[in-house]
């Protein structure tokens, strides 16, 4: 029996489980807010077309609207200025095999609980590898912070007068993962693969800058990372095939051993 058939059999038998890493798309889910002078991404909004009524007697359906970067979403390299000229850099041109990959989940939940501005360092990554093995190429590195457990939008956004405070990777960590580990992309539980205060790093927003600059991807607003093992999960993250899209909301699923 070949590997795929074996996988299918194990899957049907429940030996391989699915973990949904996706937040529900709803109008209440916090979206990214830029300074008022800039163009703004749409939050998720949904308008009923009919609900078994005079607008459509036997059916219920809606029209919805949102930005490419609303809710649990995928960032393509074309999203950032550093990736704008790379080949195959949009949601419709990324090779589809890139939408499936192993995942390495680094647990920073304790540090993030103490410090909202926690930055994941290269040292921390090396320490993770020391315990769980080397991060393999073409895989996702997911930063678990348990931020998805902050169900109050005010706490999830975590603004004060200086802006947003959410955890993320530091400059060296990103450069290391790109240059020396050849990863597929970086994923977080908060809005933004970069930390909330990453505007003040040099360069600003290093995860966007270096990841997308190297033709890699991002995943944001993930949830249930606490259900994944540090290694061994396989993540499926396939964005909508939007022509020249910079990203899209998507269903992110992880396959783990039963």
């Amino acid at each position, binding site marked *: 029996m070949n590997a795929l058939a074996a996988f299918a059999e194990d899957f049907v038998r429940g030996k391989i489980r699915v973990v949904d890493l996706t937040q529900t798309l709803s*109008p209440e889910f916090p979206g990214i807010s830029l300074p008022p002078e800039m163009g703004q991404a749409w939050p998720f*909004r949904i308008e009923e077309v009919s609900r078994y009524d005079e607008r459509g007697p036997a059916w219920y359906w809606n029209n919805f609207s949102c930005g490419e970067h609303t809710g649990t979403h995928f960032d393509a390299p074309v999203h950032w200025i550093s990736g704008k000229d790379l080949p195959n850099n949009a949601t419709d041109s990324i090779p589809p095999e890139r939408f499936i990959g192993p995942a390495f989940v680094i647990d920073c939940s304790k540090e993030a609980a103490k410090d909202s501005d926690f930055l994941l360092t290269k040292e921390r990554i090396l320490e993770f590898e020391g315990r769980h093995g080397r991060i393999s190429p073409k895989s996702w590195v997911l930063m678990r912070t348990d931020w998805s457990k902050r169900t109050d939008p005010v706490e999830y956004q975590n603004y004060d007068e200086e802006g947003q405070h959410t955890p993320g990777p530091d400059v060296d960590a990103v450069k290391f993962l790109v240059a020396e580990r050849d990863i597929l992309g970086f994923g977080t539980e908060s809005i933004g693969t970069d930390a909330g205060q990453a505007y003040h790093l040099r360069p600003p927003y290093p995860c966007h800058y270096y990841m997308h600059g190297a033709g890699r991807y991002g995943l944001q607003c993930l949830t249930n990372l606490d259900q994944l093992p540090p290694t061994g999960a396989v993540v499926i993250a396939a964005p909508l095939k939007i022509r020249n899209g910079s990203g899209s909301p998507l269903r992110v699923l992880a396959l783990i051993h039963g």
Partner: protein
Amino acid sequence: MTFLKRKNPILRTRLPTLPPAARSRVALGLTAAAALGRFELQQCRECGMVQYPPREACQSCLSVNLIWKVQKPDGELLAQTVLHHSNDLFFRERLPWRLGLVKLDCGPTVVAHLHAAVEQRVRVRAMLDRAGQAVIAALPSKESSAMADDRQLREFTCDPKQRKVLVTDGKTGLGQALVKALAKAGADIVWVGHTEPWKKFPGFDELKNLPQVTLLPLDLTDSKNVREAAAEIAGKVDILVNNAEYHRSFGIGNRQGVETARAEMDVNYFGLLRLAQEFGPAMRSRGADGKASAVAWVNLLSIYAHANFPPHGTFSASKAAAHSLAQCLRAEMRPAGVRVVNVFPGPIDDEWNQLLPPPKLAPDTLARGILGALRDGVEDVYPGDVAQEWLARWRDNPKALERELSA
């Protein structure tokens, strides 16, 4: 005024009826002036005679050159009566009802609704009645603070005293000023709408300390949220003040893409539509619900709704769209006797009007103007010097104003 008792929940709610609403076209001149809070009668251009009732030709010299002009409101009460019978449902439900016959100093004799505290000399006002038509009310010559509590006068006004009010955006300078002014004016409850709770605006947190205030998450771009907010409170809202707005300072050519303009429309126009769909039905059913009935819907528009201000061109267009929709809302609210009050301020002294030179309207001043309009029962409000001047220019020659604004 004594504290209003709670409504007995087993009694059927009285449905709205309206006073006789039919008027000839020429009589609508009285309504047009009353909508702005003015008392105007026709005056003959040739011989100067003041006319009443409104007519097509001068009763003295037959000239058809009659123009509506502000008149002195003082007069002598010649006779009065108290109605104990009426064929008209509205008045029948509100008997006994006082009326007076007044000889105005400017000439005509008028039939007027009579305030309970009048003496021989009176001062008249043209006010909008529940049908949205002008009627003349005779009030005491000397204003007093208790004057507004007159049972009959309260039928014409939208006094927030002892009423429950929703302010759709309590975070802005104007929103905060409105909430404080409404609490001071004796409102029973003020629901304070707000969005994006993670964005802190200075002063907003203090509103929570007012005993009348209840915070209410309200995002006019979110249909579901508006529906749920309405499900919770629409059955109690007596006055809805829609001051939520999205304001950017762009025309057409200096902002690429439609997103900013769309955001303006989504709040300023579609937001009004969502609110009207969700809050309208309950408010309409309570148009005659006792002394604290549903009585007014206030829209914060802009003087730019009449004539586009190109530096804020897309904002102007969204306010023009909102104005047209507000007229539609006025027609739909009219059978219930709920007054739609449209406010057309000039530039408010906030961040979006930073580059405009003074005079600009301080939020407190604008809030006072809105409360005044509710108390006086006015429906078209032009607060501040800029609004008044633009209105005069627009009415005088709209094309000239268009050119002046594009200079």
